[in-house]
Every structure is written in C-alpha cells, then in structure tokens.
C-alpha cells in the first residue's frame, strides 16, 4: 500500500507499483489536467510537482511517490500569478501542453524570482509545444515574475 498526498488530500494506492503517476492521476484519480504526450520524459505535458519540484509524472512510478506531496494543476489555486500572466499574454493555442508548461513555470518561479531569458530557456526547454507558443511563454513568465513580486511587496 502506497500512501501519499495529492493536492493536499491523503491517498492510498495498492495497484501495480510500476504504474506511472501520470496514469494514476488521469485514469484512477480522474485528474485530467495533467496530460499525456510521450511517456518518455521528452515533452513535459505530464509535469506535476513532487514536494514542490517539477517532475515528469509519466516516468515516475507509483512506488516512488510514497510519502510524497503531489500537486497537479487542479491543486493550484486560480488565478495564480502564472495563470494570470498566461491569460494576459494569451499564450495558448490548442492548450494541450499548457498545464505542463504552467506547472513547470510555477516551479521555476519558486526557485528563481526573476529569471533571465537564459534561465527560462533552460527551465522550459523540456516542455514541447507543437503549436509553437514559446515566445509567449517566455513573455508570460517575465510578466508572472512581476505579478509575483508585486504580490509579495503588497
């Protein structure tokens, strides 16, 4: 029996311990905001937070989440400054990759309050967007950093 938390709620799992967290979230817990894109940690669509750090849930087996605190997009209180910036810059096209992008960006901004373009490229290049919204993602992260700073000084 694996015990862990998802978005603050206690959970247990006694299925296949090799099952990736992604499929637990989507098919068992019905938290479908986390997306499947590749299953090989190549695209970032499945990004969630494990104890606050961004991870790829498609390659994280359930046996590794015991005791962990998992946060998915559903566990982010809207509108988070990153989500606000995403709306303002009108980042999404199809939107499929965007929850993964947002989770990655939130994790980045937690560690780095004012990331440079270079920092953003490094943090975000694991997240593919076939629609090609990278320019807007970069702009939105800068904007979110400003929102976050304003919130903190307020």
């Amino acid at each position, binding site marked *: 029996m694996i015990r862990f938390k998802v978005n603050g709620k206690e959970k247990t799992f006694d*299925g*296949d311990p090799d*099952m*990736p967290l992604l*499929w637990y979230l*989507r*098919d*068992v817990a*019905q938290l*479908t*905001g*986390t*997306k*499947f*894109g*590749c*299953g*090989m940690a*190549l*695209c970032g*669509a499945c990004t969630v937070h494990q104890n606050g750090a961004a991870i790829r849930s498609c390659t994280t087996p359930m046996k590794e989440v015991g005791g962990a605190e998992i946060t*998915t*997009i*559903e566990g*982010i209180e*809207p*509108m988070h400054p990153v*989500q606000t910036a*995403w*709306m303002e810059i*009108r980042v*999404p*096209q*199809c*939107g*499929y*990759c*965007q*929850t993964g992008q*947002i989770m990655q960006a939130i994790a980045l901004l937690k560690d780095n309050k004012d990331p440079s*373009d270079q920092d*953003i*490229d*490094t943090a*975000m*290049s*694991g*997240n*593919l*967007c*076939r*629609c*090609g*919204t*990278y*320019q*807007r*993602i*970069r702009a939105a992260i800068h904007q979110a950093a400003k929102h976050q700073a304003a919130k903190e000084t307020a």
Partner: protein
Amino acid sequence: MKLIENVSRPVSRRGFLHGALAGGVFVLSARFIPEPLWAAEGEAAAPFEPSLWMSIAPDGIVTIVAHRSEMGCGSRTALPLVVADELDADWSKVKLEQAIGDPKYGEQDTDGSHSVRSSFDLMRQVGATGRVMLIGAAAAQLGVSPKDCTTEPHFVVHRASGRKLGYGEVAAAAAKLPVPKKEDVPLKPRSEWRYIGKESNSLFDLPEIVTGKAIFGMDATMPGMVYASVEHPPVLGQKIKSYDDKAALKVPGVQKTLTIETFKPPHVFQPLGGVAVIADNTYAAFQGRKSLKIEWDSSPHSVYNSAPFRKTLETTSRQPGKVVRNVGDVDSIFAKGGKTIEAEYYAPHLAHVSMEPPVAVAEYRDGKVLAWAPTQNPQAVQETIAGVLGIKKEDVTCHVTLLGGGFGRKSKPDQVAEAAVLSKQLGKPVKVVWSREDDIRFDFFHSVAAMYMKAAIGPDGKPTAWLQRTVYPPINSTFDASATYALDEMGLGWNNLPFDIANHRAENGPADYHVRIGWLRSVANIYHAFAIHSFADELAHNANKDPVQYLLDLIGSPRIVALDLKGDEAEEAKNYPLDTARLRRVVEIAAEKSGWGKRPMSKGRGMGIAAHRSFLTYVATVVEVEVDSKGQVHIPNVWTAVDAGTIVSPDNIRNQFEGAAVFGTSLALFGEITATNGVIDQSNFHNFQLARMNRAPRHVDVQIVKSEAPPAGVGEPGVPPFAPALYNAVFAATGKRVRELPLSKTKLV
C-alpha cells in the same frame, strides 16, 4: 470522397434562416441547402430544423453553436464572435455549444484554413437576422416603430426616448416573428464592428485551458468504459497471421485481447487493423501490448525503403510529367542554348505529432454509435464508422471535444472507428488511446517530394524561361489506391507561380505510395515553396542581385495573375484573384521591418526571404540566422508580414504566425520520417525532434496588413515561406546552398 474538397474548398454554399420557439427559448437556425435549391427559399416554409445556430434564453444568455473544431487556430471562437457582433450581443453573456457532426451545419471539416472564409457571411447573417427580430419584438412591446430603434450590447433601445429592453426580455416574442428576408436584414458597416478585427478578442476557452479544466479528447470518459491500446500492423496493409496473447493476459489490469480487421484498400480512414489489448487503465493496455506475440503476413508495401525511393522520385522528376500550367514555350528558349541553371530539391515525409495523440471514446449499442473525439471532421467520423460497421451514418453521433492540436491529422478518424469496432465486440464503451509511438509510426504522413527546377537566364539576370516539376505520392492515394499523380494538389503552390516570366511550365510526375499520405498544415505548399523560393534565391545570387529586389522583380508589376484554373479553383479565383500588388506589399513590409540591407551582419549571420500565397493569404517572411562555430543554427529573429484579408482576431493571428515560425523551424531543422522495409524508423520525440524553446526563433514579429478583402486563411499560410527563408539565410551566412530538408542532415561547418 474527392480530395479537392479537402484542399481547395467550394465556397458556394448558402443557408437560410428560420426562427422557432423551443421551450421558451428563441432559436435561430440556418439550414444549408445546395445552390440550385436556393431559388425555392421563398416558396416552401422550411421544415423545423433542430440544428440551432443560436438561442437566447429569458435570462439573456445567448448560446451560439460552434460548428468548427477548436485545435488551436481559434475557429471555435472566431465564428461565434462574428454572430455576436452582428447580433450586438454582450460577449460576456455568450455561451458556446459545440456542434455534433451533422450535415445540417454544412461542411464541418476544420481543415484547409477556411473556417472563417467559408462561414463569415453566413455567421454575419445569422447574427444580423436575430438582431432584426429582437428589434421587431422590442418595438412592438414599446409601441414604437422598429425603424426608431437601435441596439447596444444585449439591449434594444428606442432612440428618441432612450427606453430599452434586454434581449432576454424580448427573446420569446422575437421567436414568434416571421424571419425577415435576407434583403431586409442590414449588416453592420465595418466601422460599427464591435468584435470583428478587435485586439481584445481572446480564445473562449482560455480560462479553462490555464486551469486544466478544458476537456480534450484525451480527457473524455463514458461510464463503464474500458481502455484499449492497439498493436497495428508494422507495414501498411499487413494482416494478422497468428498471435499469442498468453503473456499479455498476465499483465496486471489487462482484461482481454480483441482483433481488428485490416482494411481493404483504399484505406481511406478505416482502421489499420491489429490486436487490441483491453484493460482497466491506459498503462495496463500499453504494458499488455509489449507482451503480445504477433505474426504478420506480407504486404506489398514492405518494399518501402526511403533511400532508394528518393532516387526513384528524383529520376522521375528529371523526366517530362503532366503539364499543369503552361505559359509561352520554355522548350524553345532552352533550345536556344543560352545560360541555364538547374537545381533539385528534396523534402522527406513528416509526421504531425500534435501534442495530444489520437484518442477517442465510443459506445456501440443497439445498432447505434455514440462517440466523443478530438476530431477536425465529425462528419467523417460518422461516415467512417457507418462504413466500417455497416450502419447508417445518421446512427452515429459524434461529439467534438477540444483538440490538443490537429494540423490535419485529426481530419482522419481511424482511431474513433477503432473504438467503435471494439465497443461493438465488447458490449461496453471503449476508450482507444494511441501512444506517441503509434502516432508517429502510423500517421497519415506529409508526403515525401522531389522537385526539379530549370531556368534560362536573360542578359539582365532575370529568367526568360522557368520549368518546374514536382513528384510525390499523392494524398489521393488515401482514397484511390491506384492514384499516382497529385493533380488535385497543384493549387497548393504549383499551378499558380506569381512570377512575371514569359515562358513558364509546371509539371507533375507520378509516384507510388507505401504509407498513408495525408494533409499536414499547409500540405504540398511546404515543399513547393521550398523549391520555388530556394531557386529564386539561387537565381538572385547568380545574378549578383539583392534577393529582395530580385524577388520583387520576379513578381513584377502590380497585376492580377492570369491562371489556368478549372472547377472549384476557378470559382474561388473570382473572389480571390492572385494579386501581385498584395504579394509585393507583404514582401516590402517584411523587408522593411527586418531592416533588410541596413543591418550589419557579423560573421556567421545572414538573412533570407521568401513570399508565398497559400489558402488565399499573402505572406512574406524574413529569417535571420546565426550559424555558430559548431554549425548549429540559431534564429534570433523572424519578421512576417501577412495579408489575410478581413480578419476576426488579430492577436490570434499573430499567435498563429508565431507558431507557424516554430512549426517551420521544426520541419526545416529536424523533421524527417523514413521507412525501412515498410516500417517507420522514428517513434518518439528523441528521433523525431521538434523545435524546443532553446532552438525556436527567439523573436517573431508579425505585421498584419489592413485589408477589406474577403477573409482568407490564417492557420496554415505562415508555414510555407519559413523553410526557404531560413535556408536562404543559411546561404547568406555560410555560402552553403542546401537543397534538402531538414538542415540537420547537412554539416554546415
């Protein structure tokens, strides 16, 4: 099914409208009728049509039907915005209802960059008719003449007294009024548009997308459903000889295996066939597949090897083909024996790889199918499932979710048919999930192409004759297994060269298919523009001319280019003539914005240009590259100028063209699908790479030309000029002329 419907669409569809009162809600529907029946409009009253374009509830909430799919291009938002504008509705009180697949909406294939183009006038009429009826009802209630009333968002206002009634208050009365004739429905002048063309427009689904609440096909469920993953025949057309599922059935969560019959050619959108693993969840289904042992029979397509196939295409491209456009006489010019230049270009297969792989959930019950799918074409879902299961098209109901990208792949609903076939066998709803590997290996691929170009050069360096041949397995092979010519695809940048050259001939040669071929964002325009604009740049450098000036010289004076078109293309050209003034303008704007010829270029830096009209939209793109000491290409800047006629949402258009530059980067730098003995070599993002943030253009500037011309396409036209502009920039930076896609195959240093 005729291919032409998918690549070059007839625009001659009209609808008429009628009002009705359904459950206290004012509804307005337009029923599409074929052109010849149009005359009958005034005679017979339309039968009650449950297809609703819009309704207004007593609380004022306006519900507008979105009959186009949303895959990221903005169609689902754009068309309702047009209705809302003419209705004078308050957008914050508008809800969208996604239409199911049904011919009563007319054609619903969200493809070919034509959603706004084909439905703009009708949507305006729907909104404007509703507005006239609301005014009529309000005027009666106020005891005034409709002529003395106007509207402000969501209210009818009596001008003189300022008295007003909300749309919700008069909706029920409006529904009882006769529907005014088209002539009696004034459309707003452009100056009064509230939403059309406005910066403030954003995607309707934006809040749901950023909070993870948006429902894509991958997220659709049905009560009691099981999950399925299908092991397809590795080579197109193979059938199962035998299979052993013992090990698969031992995998935790696996319930059983089922087979799907291999299609009979032509494959169209039928399932590929194979063995399906049915399981409690997606992971178990994927795992179960790994333990299947399947023996496949042979297929004629196992001869497919990309390297020799390329040679075949190139050999064909050196032979005369079918002439698709002829101006003057190129042969007599070549025969004179003056200076000529020849070049050959090559472009490989590409896969769509929308971030959401193909997926669908369907239930078969009592001879009927209910499906939820991320499809660009819900009517094709109906047709395909009906055909495969032998039921009536009307007995297939297809709901459309949001699409996690489409790019043309999701016009083909083979995975939805798989779900229906499996559900029929199981007696339960089935969700079929394709892995990324399935998506890449079993795509309807963008075709592999070889182009041969030859020009005779006059004393001024300009071509006096220009011959171009293109050879590739046609999309039509998907519908007709004997098809070898791509004559239906010549409108995609081959039979409409906009250059002012006295002698010109365009040809198409034959090629066999060995994988499923389909349309991918901008389709044959990709390789056609690559060949034409690489060649134009070669000629410019050969003549020692500036490429922008040379391009403008090639385009020549402002004029309507005489084209030799037939059928639908000829019809379309009446409303959308090929206008070199518009093409020149985008070239000039892109060049000016980029500082062409004025910016000092350090070593390893260079700029290139290409301009291409596709989907009736004029686009010019300048790409700046920096080639580093390792030969890696970086793209600091892209400038694109776009003339798409009348537009609905400018910011969305910028987003589309920014995205097209990234899509273009992916195919120019990395994109290549190859086959060995009929089996596709690539499988996931490690060997079919896409541009990531660190390789994508750092800055894309999009200039939209103000235009009152009829609306044209925006989803696709940004793609074709990108690769040739990039390659021309690489030439400027390195002196290396590369004539094949993708660039990663060529060492630059």
